[in-house]
């Protein structure tokens, strides 16, 4: 397959690994923002092939992981209603709320459906006019424009029985939160290529200037990941801190403005709590007042709920790159993908799930 095979070519991977090895003269700590990149690094074993001096720490770019417990509990409260068809991306179904998950709701007779695209939620709403259809709109800037389109279409087509439970998050404020932390170890970022496909990278020069860290827009295939690492290492070794695009075939400086326009028509920046991390000002997207009629939180008045997080889970430190999964006492024993205590063990992009799947030697009794 074009645009896939050439970026998985072992000869190119070897060449890039050799070049990185030649460039490195001292230890560096790099963070890949996106959970998809974490999985790709571990899946291809690249984390172990990089020179010993390069440490990868894994970022918070897993929307399922950072969706706050309050929003999960609200989803659960809405999904139990007999008049509701609750639609969601598949990853969210096993994320633990305070007492249960969406799968439990489904097992108890709730109508919870996995959708691949937000447009499917529209179709369900059109074909089930007697039901209230709710879509769980989560994700980073990559997913916000598709979700925004569902809301815009519902308004334009007069679809009254669709609403959205919104929990969108944005990457740049999270990068700043990590860099501002006293415990920060990150010296360079591999920026999330698909977020940048939508947003471009015009937001990043302000961050590199303020915090003096290189930011390299990076893709997802093995060759892309190593091109990103090489660019970051070259900058670090040269004492530079610039924004670089290493995913040119998919990303431009301005990004996809058509998608950004629809996203900005429907959503506006809001303060957002990140699960395990806490409140980050203006780090989320919420519905603009013109689209309030589609807000599931208002339609079902779920209000404030009392939440309860597992006291054993250290997801917050994992998501900020402060600790790695094997440093968690619950990892691999009380917490497994079959019985997760925290969201990073659930998601296909969660760091704990990636370690459990690809680094079984680090699992206690694994």
């Amino acid at each position: 397959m074009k645009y896939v095979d050439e970026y998985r070519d072992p000869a190119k991977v070897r060449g890039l690994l050799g070049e990185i090895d030649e460039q490195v003269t001292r230890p560096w700590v790099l963070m890949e923002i996106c959970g998809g990149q974490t999985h790709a690094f571990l899946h291809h074993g690249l984390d172990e092939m990089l020179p010993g001096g390069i440490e990868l720490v894994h970022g918070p770019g897993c929307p399922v992981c950072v969706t706050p417990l309050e929003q999960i509990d609200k989803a659960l409260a809405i999904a139990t209603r007999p008049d509701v068809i609750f639609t969601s991306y598949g990853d969210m179904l096993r994320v633990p709320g305070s007492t249960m998950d969406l799968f439990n709701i489904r097992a108890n007779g709730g109508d919870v459906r996995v959708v691949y695209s937000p447009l499917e939620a529209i179709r369900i709403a059109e074909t089930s006019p007697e039901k209230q259809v709710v879509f769980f709109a989560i994700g980073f800037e990559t997913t916000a424009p598709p979700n925004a389109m569902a809301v815009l279409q519902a308004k334009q087509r007069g679809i009254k029985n669709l609403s959205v439970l919104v929990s969108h998050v944005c990457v740049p404020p999270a990068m700043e939160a990590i860099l501002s932390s006293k415990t920060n170890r990150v010296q360079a970022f591999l920026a999330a290529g698909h977020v940048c496909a939508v947003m471009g990278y015009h937001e990043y020069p302000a961050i590199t200037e303020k915090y003096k860290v290189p930011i390299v827009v990076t893709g997802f295939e093995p060759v892309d990941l190593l091109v990103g690492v090489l660019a970051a290492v070259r900058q670090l070794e040269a004492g530079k801190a610039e924004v670089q695009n290493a995913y040119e075939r998919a990303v431009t400086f301005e990004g996809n403005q058509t998608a950004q326009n629809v996203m900005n028509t429907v959503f506006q920046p809001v303060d957002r709590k990140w699960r395990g991390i806490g409140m980050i000002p203006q780090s989320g997207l919420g519905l603009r007042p013109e689209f309030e009629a589609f807000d599931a939180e208002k339609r079902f008045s779920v209000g404030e709920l009392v939440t309860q997080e597992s006291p054993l889970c250290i997801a917050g430190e994992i998501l900020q790159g402060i600790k790695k999964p094997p440093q968690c006492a619950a990892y691999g024993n009380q917490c497994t993908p079959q019985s997760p205590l925290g969201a990073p063990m659930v998601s296909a992009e969660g760091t704990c799930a990636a370690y459990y799947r690809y680094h079984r030697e680090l699992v206690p009794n694994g």
Partner: protein
Amino acid sequence: MCLSIPARITEIKQQDSLLMGMVDFGGVLKEVCLDYVPEAKVGQYVLIHVGFAISVLDEEEAQERLNLIREIESFEEEPGSA
């Protein structure tokens, strides 16, 4: 969640006020929304995320990067190089 996969556009059509199309993921055909890539043409490759094309892949940029990598690759393979 931000997983996006390249696919080749095989058909473009207007449907329910949206620009839709068929794309080919290496043999698997799927209907997707092309509203965010109005400039896309049949035969071009796009990145698909949750049923939406979010970017048209740039052939020239891809070639340029692959050429740079090829240089590194041949340099690394030279006998006697470190």
